Protein backbone atom coordinates (compact mmCIF):
# COMPACT_ATOMS: atom_id res chain seq x y z
CA UNK A 1 0.00 0.00 0.00
CA UNK A 2 2.82 2.33 0.91
CA UNK A 3 4.55 1.73 -2.39
CA UNK A 4 1.29 2.38 -4.23
CA UNK A 5 0.93 5.72 -2.49
CA UNK A 6 4.54 6.55 -3.32
CA UNK A 7 3.98 5.65 -6.96
CA UNK A 8 0.87 7.84 -7.09
CA UNK A 9 2.85 10.66 -5.51
CA UNK A 10 5.50 10.36 -8.20
CA UNK A 11 2.86 10.30 -10.95
CA UNK A 12 1.20 13.40 -9.57
CA UNK A 13 4.58 15.12 -9.35
CA UNK A 14 4.48 15.73 -5.60
CA UNK A 15 7.26 13.23 -4.88
CA UNK A 16 10.60 12.76 -6.60
CA UNK A 17 11.24 9.26 -7.91
CA UNK A 18 14.39 8.96 -5.83
CA UNK A 19 16.19 5.66 -6.03
CA UNK A 20 16.72 3.68 -2.87
CA UNK A 21 19.94 4.75 -1.14
CA UNK A 22 22.80 2.33 -1.68
CA UNK A 23 24.36 1.17 1.56
CA UNK A 24 27.98 0.14 1.77
CA UNK A 25 29.21 -1.14 5.10
CA UNK A 26 32.54 -2.35 6.40
CA UNK A 27 33.35 -3.82 9.77
CA UNK A 28 36.89 -3.48 11.02
CA UNK A 29 38.82 -3.76 14.24
CA UNK A 30 41.11 -1.39 15.98
CA UNK A 31 42.80 -2.87 19.01
CA UNK A 32 40.21 -5.03 20.79
CA UNK A 33 37.17 -3.13 19.58
CA UNK A 34 34.89 -3.80 16.64
CA UNK A 35 33.87 -0.80 14.56
CA UNK A 36 31.57 -0.19 11.64
CA UNK A 37 31.77 2.36 8.83
CA UNK A 38 28.76 2.95 6.63
CA UNK A 39 27.98 5.16 3.69
CA UNK A 40 24.44 5.62 2.40
CA UNK A 41 24.82 7.01 -1.11
CA UNK A 42 21.75 8.93 -2.12
CA UNK A 43 20.30 9.14 1.38
CA UNK A 44 19.64 12.83 0.91
CA UNK A 45 18.66 12.90 -2.76
CA UNK A 46 15.28 13.54 -4.32
CA UNK A 47 12.42 14.13 -1.89
CA UNK A 48 14.77 14.06 1.09
CA UNK A 49 16.81 16.95 -0.38
CA UNK A 50 13.69 18.90 -1.17
CA UNK A 51 12.39 18.43 2.36
CA UNK A 52 15.74 19.55 3.78
CA UNK A 53 15.78 22.57 1.46
CA UNK A 54 12.44 23.68 2.86
CA UNK A 55 13.94 23.79 6.34
CA UNK A 56 13.01 20.36 7.70
CA UNK A 57 15.73 18.37 9.41
CA UNK A 58 15.82 15.19 7.35
CA UNK A 59 17.67 12.33 8.96
CA UNK A 60 18.29 8.63 8.89
CA UNK A 61 18.80 6.25 11.77
CA UNK A 62 21.25 3.43 11.48
CA UNK A 63 20.94 0.26 13.54
CA UNK A 64 23.67 -2.35 13.73
CA UNK A 65 22.97 -5.66 15.43
CA UNK A 66 25.65 -8.23 16.10
CA UNK A 67 23.93 -11.61 16.07
CA UNK A 68 25.14 -15.13 16.54
CA UNK A 69 25.19 -17.08 13.29
CA UNK A 70 23.31 -20.04 14.74
CA UNK A 71 19.61 -20.55 13.92
CA UNK A 72 18.66 -18.82 17.20
CA UNK A 73 20.33 -15.54 16.14
CA UNK A 74 21.04 -14.27 19.66
CA UNK A 75 22.08 -10.70 20.15
CA UNK A 76 25.78 -10.74 21.05
CA UNK A 77 26.13 -7.06 21.96
CA UNK A 78 23.85 -4.06 22.58
CA UNK A 79 22.36 -2.61 19.41
CA UNK A 80 24.55 0.22 18.11
CA UNK A 81 22.72 3.25 16.73
CA UNK A 82 23.72 6.34 14.85
CA UNK A 83 21.82 9.21 13.38
CA UNK A 84 22.77 11.62 10.62
CA UNK A 85 20.79 14.62 9.47
CA UNK A 86 20.73 17.35 6.88
CA UNK A 87 18.82 20.60 6.85
CA UNK A 88 19.02 24.03 5.31
CA UNK A 89 19.28 26.85 7.77
CA UNK A 90 16.74 29.45 6.64
CA UNK A 91 18.54 32.27 8.46
CA UNK A 92 21.96 31.79 6.87
CA UNK A 93 21.01 29.83 3.76
CA UNK A 94 23.70 27.27 4.56
CA UNK A 95 23.30 23.52 4.69
CA UNK A 96 23.97 21.86 8.03
CA UNK A 97 25.08 18.26 8.41
CA UNK A 98 24.94 16.85 11.93
CA UNK A 99 24.52 13.63 13.80
CA UNK A 100 25.36 11.47 16.74
CA UNK A 101 27.63 10.00 17.59
CA UNK A 102 30.62 11.69 16.06
CA UNK A 103 29.29 14.50 13.87
CA UNK A 104 29.08 17.97 15.33
CA UNK A 105 26.94 20.32 13.24
CA UNK A 106 28.89 21.56 10.26
CA UNK A 107 27.66 24.17 7.83
CA UNK A 108 28.27 24.17 4.08
CA UNK A 109 27.47 26.60 1.30
CA UNK A 110 27.18 23.64 -1.04
CA UNK A 111 24.37 21.09 -0.45
CA UNK A 112 26.39 18.36 -2.14
CA UNK A 113 29.21 18.52 0.37
CA UNK A 114 26.77 18.57 3.27
CA UNK A 115 24.82 15.59 1.87
CA UNK A 116 28.03 13.60 1.38
CA UNK A 117 29.15 14.25 4.96
CA UNK A 118 25.71 13.51 6.39
CA UNK A 119 25.47 10.23 4.48
CA UNK A 120 28.51 8.74 6.24
CA UNK A 121 28.99 7.07 9.59
CA UNK A 122 32.66 6.55 10.27
CA UNK A 123 33.96 4.17 12.91
CA UNK A 124 30.77 3.49 14.89
CA UNK A 125 31.85 1.55 17.96
CA UNK A 126 29.96 -1.74 18.05
CA UNK A 127 31.32 -4.02 20.74
CA UNK A 128 34.43 -5.64 22.12
CA UNK A 129 36.02 -7.76 19.42
CA UNK A 130 35.64 -10.87 21.60
CA UNK A 131 31.84 -10.67 21.08
CA UNK A 132 32.36 -12.01 17.55
CA UNK A 133 33.65 -15.25 19.03
CA UNK A 134 33.81 -18.09 16.50
CA UNK A 135 31.49 -16.34 14.11
CA UNK A 136 28.74 -13.75 13.94
CA UNK A 137 26.44 -11.88 11.62
CA UNK A 138 26.27 -8.10 11.54
CA UNK A 139 22.93 -6.75 10.30
CA UNK A 140 22.89 -3.08 9.42
CA UNK A 141 19.65 -1.33 8.57
CA UNK A 142 18.81 2.33 7.92
CA UNK A 143 15.51 4.15 8.10
CA UNK A 144 14.70 7.75 7.11
CA UNK A 145 12.81 10.24 9.17
CA UNK A 146 12.30 13.86 10.05
CA UNK A 147 13.38 15.50 13.29
CA UNK A 148 11.08 18.24 14.49
CA UNK A 149 12.06 21.45 16.29
CA UNK A 150 11.77 19.69 19.66
CA UNK A 151 14.22 17.00 18.54
CA UNK A 152 11.56 14.31 18.28
CA UNK A 153 12.05 11.67 15.59
CA UNK A 154 9.25 11.04 13.10
CA UNK A 155 9.61 8.07 10.76
CA UNK A 156 9.28 9.12 7.11
CA UNK A 157 9.74 5.96 5.08
CA UNK A 158 8.12 7.67 2.12
CA UNK A 159 11.33 9.69 1.57
CA UNK A 160 13.05 6.53 0.37
CA UNK A 161 10.06 5.05 -1.38
CA UNK A 162 9.31 2.79 1.59
CA UNK A 163 12.56 0.93 1.06
CA UNK A 164 14.79 -0.04 3.97
CA UNK A 165 18.43 -0.54 2.97
CA UNK A 166 19.91 -3.56 4.70
CA UNK A 167 23.41 -5.02 4.67
CA UNK A 168 24.38 -8.28 6.28
CA UNK A 169 28.06 -8.87 6.98
CA UNK A 170 29.30 -12.32 7.91
CA UNK A 171 32.16 -12.31 10.40
CA UNK A 172 33.84 -15.73 10.51
CA UNK A 173 35.89 -15.07 13.60
CA UNK A 174 37.34 -12.23 15.62
CA UNK A 175 40.81 -12.87 14.18
CA UNK A 176 39.55 -12.54 10.61
CA UNK A 177 37.94 -9.14 11.08
CA UNK A 178 40.09 -6.76 8.99
CA UNK A 179 41.88 -3.81 10.47
Amino acid at each position, binding site marked *: MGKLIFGLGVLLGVLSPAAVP*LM*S*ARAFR*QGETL*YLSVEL*SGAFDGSAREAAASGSEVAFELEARLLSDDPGARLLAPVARARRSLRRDAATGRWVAAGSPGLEP*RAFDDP*EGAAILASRV*WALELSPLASVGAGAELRVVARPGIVDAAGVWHPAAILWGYAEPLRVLKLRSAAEVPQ
Partner: protein
Amino acid sequence: MHRSRSIAAAVLAALAALSLSAEAQPEIAYRILSGYVEKKEAAGDAGSKVAGTVLSSIGGLAIGGAAVAWFGSDEIADAMGAPRLDQDTKLGLTIGLGVGGAAFALGGAALIAAKPLDYRAAYAEVFTERDSAVREALSVAVLRDLALRGREARVTGALSSLLVPLVSSAIRVAVNVSEDKVWSDNLFSGVSWSSWSLVGGITGLFSTSEEERLYEKYLAGRDALYGERP
Protein backbone atom coordinates in the same frame (compact mmCIF):
# COMPACT_ATOMS: atom_id res chain seq x y z
CA MET B 1 63.71 11.31 34.93
CA HIS B 2 63.96 13.23 31.70
CA ARG B 3 64.33 9.95 29.75
CA SER B 4 61.30 8.29 31.41
CA ARG B 5 59.25 11.40 30.72
CA SER B 6 60.23 11.18 27.02
CA ILE B 7 59.28 7.51 26.86
CA ALA B 8 55.92 8.24 28.50
CA ALA B 9 55.28 11.03 26.01
CA ALA B 10 56.10 8.67 23.13
CA VAL B 11 53.77 5.98 24.51
CA LEU B 12 50.99 8.53 24.98
CA ALA B 13 51.51 9.77 21.43
CA ALA B 14 51.30 6.20 20.10
CA LEU B 15 48.12 5.52 22.07
CA ALA B 16 46.62 8.76 20.83
CA ALA B 17 47.53 7.80 17.28
CA LEU B 18 45.82 4.41 17.73
CA SER B 19 42.63 5.99 19.03
CA LEU B 20 42.70 8.70 16.39
CA SER B 21 42.97 6.14 13.58
CA ALA B 22 39.55 4.74 14.54
CA GLU B 23 38.07 8.23 14.82
CA ALA B 24 39.81 10.31 12.14
CA GLN B 25 38.51 9.59 8.70
CA PRO B 26 41.23 9.30 6.02
CA GLU B 27 41.04 12.10 3.49
CA ILE B 28 41.24 10.16 0.25
CA ALA B 29 39.38 12.61 -1.94
CA TYR B 30 41.30 15.59 -0.60
CA ARG B 31 44.65 13.93 -1.29
CA ILE B 32 43.61 12.96 -4.82
CA LEU B 33 42.29 16.45 -5.50
CA SER B 34 45.40 18.11 -4.08
CA GLY B 35 47.62 15.92 -6.23
CA TYR B 36 45.58 16.80 -9.31
CA VAL B 37 45.72 20.54 -8.62
CA GLU B 38 49.46 20.47 -7.89
CA LYS B 39 50.05 18.62 -11.14
CA LYS B 40 47.98 21.17 -13.08
CA GLU B 41 49.80 24.06 -11.42
CA ALA B 42 53.19 22.54 -12.21
CA ALA B 43 52.24 22.00 -15.85
CA GLY B 44 50.73 25.47 -16.06
CA ASP B 45 49.07 26.10 -19.36
CA ALA B 46 52.06 24.78 -21.32
CA GLY B 47 50.18 21.64 -22.27
CA SER B 48 47.23 23.58 -23.64
CA LYS B 49 49.44 25.97 -25.59
CA VAL B 50 51.44 23.14 -27.15
CA ALA B 51 48.30 21.19 -28.00
CA GLY B 52 46.67 24.32 -29.39
CA THR B 53 49.71 25.09 -31.54
CA VAL B 54 49.85 21.55 -32.87
CA LEU B 55 46.14 21.50 -33.65
CA SER B 56 46.26 24.90 -35.34
CA SER B 57 49.27 23.84 -37.38
CA ILE B 58 47.58 20.65 -38.53
CA GLY B 59 44.45 22.62 -39.30
CA GLY B 60 46.40 25.18 -41.26
CA LEU B 61 48.21 22.51 -43.23
CA ALA B 62 44.95 20.77 -44.02
CA ILE B 63 43.35 24.03 -45.19
CA GLY B 64 46.43 24.74 -47.26
CA GLY B 65 46.16 21.25 -48.68
CA ALA B 66 42.53 21.90 -49.57
CA ALA B 67 43.50 25.11 -51.37
CA VAL B 68 46.27 23.36 -53.26
CA ALA B 69 43.93 20.53 -54.18
CA TRP B 70 41.35 22.92 -55.60
CA PHE B 71 43.53 25.55 -57.24
CA GLY B 72 46.77 23.76 -58.00
CA SER B 73 46.16 20.04 -58.43
CA ASP B 74 45.82 20.33 -62.20
CA GLU B 75 49.15 22.15 -62.59
CA ILE B 76 50.87 19.72 -60.26
CA ALA B 77 49.51 16.75 -62.20
CA ASP B 78 50.62 18.29 -65.51
CA ALA B 79 54.10 19.00 -64.17
CA MET B 80 54.45 15.42 -62.97
CA GLY B 81 53.05 13.98 -66.15
CA ALA B 82 50.28 12.34 -64.22
CA PRO B 83 46.58 12.28 -65.08
CA ARG B 84 44.56 15.12 -63.59
CA LEU B 85 42.14 14.42 -60.75
CA ASP B 86 38.59 14.18 -61.93
CA GLN B 87 36.33 16.94 -60.72
CA ASP B 88 34.45 14.83 -58.20
CA THR B 89 37.60 13.52 -56.55
CA LYS B 90 39.03 17.04 -56.45
CA LEU B 91 35.86 18.34 -54.83
CA GLY B 92 35.73 15.53 -52.27
CA LEU B 93 39.39 16.03 -51.36
CA THR B 94 38.94 19.78 -51.01
CA ILE B 95 35.85 19.49 -48.83
CA GLY B 96 37.33 16.80 -46.62
CA LEU B 97 40.60 18.64 -46.04
CA GLY B 98 38.92 22.02 -45.75
CA VAL B 99 36.26 21.08 -43.22
CA GLY B 100 38.62 18.94 -41.18
CA GLY B 101 41.31 21.58 -41.26
CA ALA B 102 38.89 24.27 -40.15
CA ALA B 103 37.77 22.14 -37.21
CA PHE B 104 41.35 21.56 -36.11
CA ALA B 105 42.33 25.20 -36.58
CA LEU B 106 39.36 26.46 -34.57
CA GLY B 107 39.99 23.94 -31.83
CA GLY B 108 43.65 24.89 -31.66
CA ALA B 109 42.87 28.60 -31.55
CA ALA B 110 40.41 28.02 -28.71
CA LEU B 111 43.03 26.13 -26.72
CA ILE B 112 45.64 28.83 -27.25
CA ALA B 113 43.23 31.62 -26.32
CA ALA B 114 41.85 29.86 -23.24
CA LYS B 115 43.05 31.15 -19.90
CA PRO B 116 44.39 28.49 -17.53
CA LEU B 117 42.01 27.71 -14.70
CA ASP B 118 43.16 28.73 -11.23
CA TYR B 119 42.02 25.62 -9.41
CA ARG B 120 42.90 26.90 -5.96
CA ALA B 121 40.74 29.97 -6.49
CA ALA B 122 37.95 27.99 -8.16
CA TYR B 123 37.81 25.53 -5.30
CA ALA B 124 38.90 27.88 -2.51
CA GLU B 125 36.23 26.51 -0.16
CA VAL B 126 38.09 23.19 -0.17
CA PHE B 127 41.62 24.47 0.23
CA THR B 128 40.80 27.02 2.91
CA GLU B 129 38.72 24.61 5.02
CA ARG B 130 40.43 23.49 8.21
CA ASP B 131 37.88 20.92 9.35
CA SER B 132 39.08 17.63 7.86
CA ALA B 133 35.62 16.02 7.68
CA VAL B 134 34.15 19.02 5.86
CA ARG B 135 37.18 19.27 3.61
CA GLU B 136 36.88 15.62 2.63
CA ALA B 137 33.16 15.91 1.86
CA LEU B 138 33.78 19.00 -0.26
CA SER B 139 36.65 17.27 -2.06
CA VAL B 140 34.34 14.39 -2.98
CA ALA B 141 31.83 16.85 -4.40
CA VAL B 142 34.58 18.60 -6.39
CA LEU B 143 35.99 15.35 -7.79
CA ARG B 144 32.51 14.33 -8.88
CA ASP B 145 31.98 17.72 -10.51
CA LEU B 146 35.34 17.48 -12.31
CA ALA B 147 34.53 13.98 -13.56
CA LEU B 148 31.17 15.13 -14.91
CA ARG B 149 32.77 18.11 -16.68
CA GLY B 150 35.55 15.90 -18.06
CA ARG B 151 33.01 13.48 -19.45
CA GLU B 152 30.99 16.32 -20.94
CA ALA B 153 34.07 17.77 -22.66
CA ARG B 154 35.14 14.35 -23.92
CA VAL B 155 31.72 13.49 -25.37
CA THR B 156 31.31 16.95 -26.92
CA GLY B 157 34.74 16.68 -28.55
CA ALA B 158 33.99 13.18 -29.81
CA LEU B 159 30.64 14.22 -31.27
CA SER B 160 32.28 17.20 -32.97
CA SER B 161 34.82 14.88 -34.57
CA LEU B 162 32.04 12.57 -35.71
CA LEU B 163 30.29 15.55 -37.27
CA VAL B 164 33.19 16.26 -39.68
CA PRO B 165 32.43 13.36 -42.04
CA LEU B 166 28.71 14.07 -41.68
CA VAL B 167 29.18 17.70 -42.70
CA SER B 168 31.44 16.65 -45.56
CA SER B 169 28.80 14.19 -46.71
CA ALA B 170 26.06 16.81 -46.47
CA ILE B 171 28.07 19.23 -48.59
CA ARG B 172 28.81 16.45 -51.08
CA VAL B 173 25.11 15.59 -51.36
CA ALA B 174 24.17 19.26 -51.76
CA VAL B 175 26.70 19.70 -54.54
CA ASN B 176 25.49 16.53 -56.30
CA VAL B 177 21.89 17.67 -56.15
CA SER B 178 22.76 21.14 -57.38
CA GLU B 179 24.57 19.60 -60.35
CA ASP B 180 21.63 17.30 -61.10
CA LYS B 181 23.63 14.18 -60.24
CA VAL B 182 22.63 11.18 -58.19
CA TRP B 183 22.79 12.34 -54.57
CA SER B 184 25.17 9.58 -53.56
CA ASP B 185 27.57 10.10 -56.43
CA ASN B 186 31.16 9.85 -55.10
CA LEU B 187 29.77 10.26 -51.59
CA PHE B 188 32.00 7.69 -49.91
CA SER B 189 35.15 8.74 -51.72
CA GLY B 190 34.66 12.21 -50.27
CA VAL B 191 33.93 10.91 -46.80
CA SER B 192 37.00 8.68 -46.82
CA TRP B 193 39.24 11.74 -46.60
CA SER B 194 37.77 12.54 -43.20
CA SER B 195 37.81 9.00 -41.86
CA TRP B 196 40.55 10.00 -39.40
CA SER B 197 38.05 12.33 -37.74
CA LEU B 198 35.57 9.47 -37.50
CA VAL B 199 38.19 7.30 -35.81
CA GLY B 200 39.05 10.12 -33.41
CA GLY B 201 35.41 10.61 -32.52
CA ILE B 202 34.78 6.93 -31.85
CA THR B 203 37.96 6.72 -29.76
CA GLY B 204 36.84 9.73 -27.76
CA LEU B 205 33.45 8.22 -27.04
CA PHE B 206 34.89 5.00 -25.62
CA SER B 207 37.84 6.41 -23.66
CA THR B 208 37.86 8.11 -20.26
CA SER B 209 39.23 11.51 -19.35
CA GLU B 210 41.81 12.11 -16.62
CA GLU B 211 39.14 13.61 -14.35
CA GLU B 212 36.90 10.56 -14.74
CA ARG B 213 39.82 8.29 -13.87
CA LEU B 214 40.55 10.39 -10.79
CA TYR B 215 36.99 9.95 -9.56
CA GLU B 216 37.18 6.20 -10.18
CA LYS B 217 40.39 6.16 -8.17
CA TYR B 218 38.58 7.93 -5.34
CA LEU B 219 35.68 5.43 -5.51
CA ALA B 220 38.13 2.54 -5.24
CA GLY B 221 39.63 4.09 -2.13
CA ARG B 222 36.18 4.84 -0.76
CA ASP B 223 35.19 1.18 -1.21
CA ALA B 224 38.20 0.17 0.85
CA LEU B 225 36.95 2.35 3.72
CA TYR B 226 33.21 1.87 3.55
CA GLY B 227 32.89 -1.46 1.80
CA GLU B 228 31.82 -2.11 -1.75
CA ARG B 229 28.50 -0.85 -2.94
CA PRO B 230 25.85 -3.52 -3.52
